[in-house]
């Protein structure tokens, strides 16, 4: 066991866990004030549900010996009953399992942005459990499970590169988000009615926590504290920076204003796009990928207005598109100096890698979209997936959670001394 590697993976695991509360704020700030709590709940319950399933069978399905064809793992690791000394590479196996658990959590949580304001909470909880089981655990096996060519079919057999989850996490969540947005339909009033973010400072806070946590996500994916981790770290930083700049540049040219939400959105788009590529490109390549992804996603988010699906917080435009862009650009920017093998088109590697990347994107996207659509429909038929129209107008927070997010008026908030005093009053004649 290597204590330095272990220290870094433990720290990374904590960082990736933090991404989900960060995402909750990022998404929550973009909703209207009457549904922010529901958004927080949707994200946070993913932590609850997926963690428990992970111990029971999730880790095992994703990371145990392949049960055939690189499609799914067996159940030998169910329950996570490992020895303290059991290792995965140079680190304790439970450190690796904890790290990967955080990926499963946030992938599910990402989907929630597409169905803001209108999903029945109970249905969402069921969806998360089923989706993790039928979609995430298998796909993680495909992409992340390496076993000397006997691992997952995409990562270990096909040889598509996905360092930290551009396909398994972002294309996966983005395709699922699209399916679920179609299952649930549009919010009351959308798109005629304008719905603006209710709290941009917490959107930026969320984006900051995501960026911070993403270092664990990407650089932690080296599963070691080494040069590859350092490269992934630097790539993550500069791709994100470039994407944030390129998104607000597009805005400035198109709308005349660089916006705060645009800056944050660009940063997330950059983080998404560099996720698969952080272990394959050099810093200059990362800047290019970030700049491209920022601009592409800035345009992609308008698609929903043309195609009329209500992907409320742009999970498709940012995660599906950003993830695919990043995964495909590996085909251009991958360099042997980092990958230790494959080269992309711009580094003399021809189109081979690009082809593999396209297969990976298409396979994950299609599988996720179809399965999610089916799961969503079944839940809709059986328990109903959407709240009533009037409840949506009143606000899902009060209706589903019996809570209000804010009560900020210092002067008028409770503590009414003497509220109990009885007053003698005349009686109204006809009362």
């Amino acid at each position, binding site marked *: 066991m290597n204590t330095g590697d272990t220290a870094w993976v433990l720290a990374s695991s904590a960082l990736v866990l933090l991404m989900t509360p960060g995402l909750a704020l990022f998404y929550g700030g973009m909703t209207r004030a009457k549904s922010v709590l529901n958004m927080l709940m949707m994200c946070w319950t993913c932590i609850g549900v997926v963690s428990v399933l992970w111990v029971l069978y999730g880790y095992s399905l994703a990371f145990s010996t392949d049960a055939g064809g690189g499609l799914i793992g067996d159940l030998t690791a169910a329950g996570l009953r490992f020895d303290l000394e059991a290792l995965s590479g140079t680190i304790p196996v439970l450190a690796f399992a904890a790290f990967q658990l955080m990926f499963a959590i946030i992938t599910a949580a990402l989907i929630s942005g597409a169905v803001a304001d209108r999903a029945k909470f109970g249905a969402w909880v069921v969806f998360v459990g089923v989706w993790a089981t039928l979609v995430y655990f298998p796909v993680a096996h495909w992409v992340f499970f390496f076993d000397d060519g006997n691992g997952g079919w995409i990562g270990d057999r096909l040889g598509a590169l996905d360092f930290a989850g551009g396909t398994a996490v972002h294309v996966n969540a983005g395709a699922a988000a699209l399916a679920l947005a179609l299952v649930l339909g549009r919010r009351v009033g959308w798109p005629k009615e304008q719905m603006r973010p209710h709290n941009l400072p917490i959107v930026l806070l969320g984006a900051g926590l995501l960026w911070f946590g993403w270092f664990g996500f990407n650089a932690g994916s080296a599963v070691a504290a080494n040069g590859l981790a350092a490269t992934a770290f630097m790539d993550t930083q500069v791709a994100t920076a470039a994407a944030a700049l390129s998104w607000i540049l597009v805005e400035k040219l198109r709308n005349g204003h660089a916006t705060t939400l645009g800056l944050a959105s660009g940063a997330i788009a950059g983080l998404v796009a560099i996720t698969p590529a952080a272990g394959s490109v050099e810093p200059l390549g990362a800047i290019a990928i970030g700049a491209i992804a920022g601009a592409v996603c800035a345009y992609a988010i308008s698609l929903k207005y043309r195609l009329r699906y209500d992907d409320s917080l742009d999970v498709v435009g940012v995660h599906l598109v950003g993830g695919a862009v990043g995964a495909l650009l590996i085909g251009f920017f991958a360099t042997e100096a980092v990958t230790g093998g494959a080269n992309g088109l711009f580094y003399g590697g021809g189109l081979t890698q690009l082809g593999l990347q396209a297969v990976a994107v298409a396979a994950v996207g299609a599988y996720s979209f179809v399965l999610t659509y089916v799961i969503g429909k079944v839940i809709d038929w059986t328990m109903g997936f959407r709240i009533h129209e009037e409840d949506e107008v009143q606000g899902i927070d009060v209706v589903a959670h019996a809570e209000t997010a804010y009560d900020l*008026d210092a*002067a*008028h908030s409770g*503590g*009414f*001394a*003497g*509220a109990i*005093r009885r*007053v*003698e*009053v*005349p*009686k*109204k*004649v*006809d*009362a």
Partner: protein
Amino acid sequence: MKLVTAIIKPFKLDDVKAALEAYGVRGLTVTEASGYGRQRGHTEVYRGAEYNVDLIPKMRVEVVCEDEDAADIIDVVVKAAQTGKIGDGKVWSVPLETVVRVRTGERGPDAL
């Protein structure tokens, strides 16, 4: 029909609401307001610099009522809102020409 408007201390709102209900008033409308008057505000300090807050939070309560109840209602509000300390507020009334209940279109006393 009359409209009685009361400016009261925020923490008296529950008392006033309860007293009006006891009297027989079935509805009212409340707005958050701030008052400036004899009652002094307070001073806040941020990094050594002073900031004077001279608008003090108040509640503005409006009750539409029949002509003959107006005087009683004013009394009820004054009693319920009184603490005897400066800043308790004001109550005033004006005559209305029409009142309509939006839901039904009923007018006058029936609208209450």
